[in-house]
């Protein structure tokens, strides 16, 4: 499993280059894709080199997840709260996308060299804002999760929220939240396509739950795995629960979502995938094979090695004496 960072590297790279490049204009028009079918379309035009038009397409929502105008609950508010005047949402979004935004880089905090004596921003601060723009995925998709967890931090239940909330996890798949005043239970149905993957993932997840029990990890959210849907998911339509690698349940308590930890918790819960575990297994398997071969090599007796050498000699060495003997 591999932990991904929240900002998209590619977006961040483009934004940083653009901010540093000064007034030089160049057309950029590119599409890029992220895991779970999140698509980005990035456009810069010659005329407005400091204005980026960013369109985002979200994963196809499963039927049980509730959306508001094609966006998750509270996404628009979250965008406004996070970016302020830098970002302007264009309505309606571009064809084939769920959200189109205009990002005005001139409204970013200016350089140190700016004439404005009272506003003084360091490059680090500006970078932090760019990083936030690059994490647009977290802001939009994580908005409902953040909302619920914020209420958890203040130990209340969000008003007008159902007992069980379905959120978009992957295209046509959802994960479920059961918010309560003192804890939030989060359940992920795990699905895999490949039959080998199902077996590997099942054992991996069991190991994962086992690892949680070690003493060093006492404070992390508790974690369970079960092959059948847990009790919290009563009343959910059956086709949303056809997980073939079991269900993973996390229980998040208020201490996990204290002010600073909130963002990280949101992102980690939002992108819970068992990615890439197979790669590590292969690496370890290869290393094991190598060490076993080495052990076999060592186990060969010296005589065996010698025999090989003698066998390789292609002619018999004759001394003068032998030659003499043969003549006689």
């Amino acid at each position, binding site marked *: 499993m591999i932990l991904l960072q929240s900002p998209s590297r590619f977006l961040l*790279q483009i934004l940083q280059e653009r901010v540093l490049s000064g007034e030089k204009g160049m057309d950029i028009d*590119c599409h890029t894709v992220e*895991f779970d079918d999140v698509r980005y379309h990035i456009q810069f035009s010659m005329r407005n080199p400091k204005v980026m038009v960013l369109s985002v397409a979200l994963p196809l929502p499963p039927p049980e997840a509730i959306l508001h105008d094609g966006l998750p609950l509270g996404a628009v508010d979250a965008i406004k709260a996070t970016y302020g005047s830098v970002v302007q949402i264009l309505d309606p979004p571009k064809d084939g996308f769920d959200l189109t935004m205009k990002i005005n880089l001139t409204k970013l905090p200016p350089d140190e060299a700016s004439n404005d004596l009272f506003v003084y921003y360091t490059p680090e601060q500006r970078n932090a804002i760019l990083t936030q723009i690059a994490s647009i995925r977290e802001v939009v998709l994580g908005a409902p999760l953040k909302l619920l967890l914020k209420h958890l931090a203040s130990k209340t239940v969000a008003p007008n929220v159902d007992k069980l909330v379905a959120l978009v996890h992957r295209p046509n798949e959802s994960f479920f939240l059961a918010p309560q005043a003192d804890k939030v239970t989060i359940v992920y149905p795990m699905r895999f396509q*490949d039959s080998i993957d199902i077996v590997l993932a099942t054992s991996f997840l069991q190991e994962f739950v086992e690892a949680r029990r070690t003493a060093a990890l006492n404070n992390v959210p508790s974690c369970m795995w079960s092959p059948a849907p847990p009790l919290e998911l009563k009343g959910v339509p059956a086709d949303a629960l056809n997980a073939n690698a079991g269900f993973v349940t996390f229980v998040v308590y208020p201490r996990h979502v204290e002010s600073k930890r909130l963002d990280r918790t949101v992102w980690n819960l939002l992108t819970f995938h068992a990615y890439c575990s197979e790669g590590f297994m*292969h*690496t370890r398997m290869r290393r094991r094979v190598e060490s076993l071969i080495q052990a076999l090599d060592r186990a060969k007796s010296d005589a065996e090695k010698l025999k090989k050498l003698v066998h390789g000699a292609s002619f018999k060495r004759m001394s003068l004496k032998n030659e003499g003997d043969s003549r006689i």
Partner: protein
Amino acid sequence: MDALSRPAVVIDNGTGYTKMGFAGNVEPCFITPTVVAVNDSFSSSAPPAARGAPAKGNWLAQHSAGVMADLDFYIGEEALARSRASSTYSLSYPIRNGQVENWDAMERFWQQCIFNYLRCDPEDHYFLLTESPLTAPETREYTGEIMFETFNVPGLYIAVQPVLALAAGYTTTKCEMTGVVVDVGDGATHIVPVADGYVIGSSIRSIPITGKDVTQFIQQLLKERGENIPPEESFDVARRLKEMYCYTSSDIVKEFNKHDREPSKYIKHWGGIKPKTGAKYTVDIGYERFLGPEIFFNPEIYNNDFTTPLQVVIDRCIQSSPIDTRRALYKNIVLSGGSTMFKDFHRRLQRDLKKIVDARLRASNNRLISGDPKAQPIEVNVVSHPIQRYAVWFGGSVLASTAEFYEACHTKAEYEEYGASICRSNPVFKGMY
């Protein structure tokens, strides 16, 4: 959405830099150095077995330390920065001279490329990887194995770099798929004739002078002149100076004179900070600016073992190709690879090559008896385009955005049916062998 409707992932692993991105774009998303920084503090200095300690616990500790070390690595610029900052990371370059040497590091590199840089799920995308024309089929098999087994890709195509470089020129200049690709990378230099999209395998030439040699030559010149560069950084500094300031001269003697007459105009300064002490230092760079790239045209100034200039090798390569393709080959000589990016490189190459070709033509015309038809002059054309640095990647991007690409791919179903041997054959080489 299925994998066919998503853009394919194109990764061009070069010795020096890796270019990666999604098909259909003009530029790769990332160009990063092909390097992996591995934390080897666990594996090399495993704690000696403490006496009396339970053997099992010790084994377990070592095992989990090994697991952690497996997870603790970086690639690209990050790797360079990490290894500079602390000595617990050691750098490993998975590709050497265009061939994969360290598969473990290569797999880790791909893993980071896919998950951390491109941030895509490899199960959702077709993949296009590249290889040098001299790659052994076994290597291709191994690549296929890693891609299908570890990353579970739905389809894979392993393309030959020079053909992609030609395909890149195809869209910009509307020329044929016939031409000579002069691919000067960081670790390998190949001259590959391609006729109608098929590589003429028997005429491939490779020369031992590469981008890395240019860097080493500059490093050596700087050292001999006594520039004050910290030794641990000198290769890196030389590489950066090469990328920023080097250019190709038309005449080496004239260039020396120019530099001597107006040193202030030609000598550049470069400032750096010593990593250990933090003190500042400056480097002057003068003759190195044009002497670096000169080793392609006059290799004897660098290396006594190999003294055939690039233009002569290209000429011999074309002369060994089938006779009916030669004129077309001379007409379309395509540059690719980062080390052809020196200013005026293509002009110099075209002039020098034309000289050889014209001399031969004149000689053969002189041998003719009067009245015989004379040979037509041969058109020599070295094509250079602005995307030369990642021409191979761009060619891959173009190729992978066509509908035919998905049909030419080796698919996961095929892999499961026949095994890794499906990757041995490459449609581009078919018919030539």
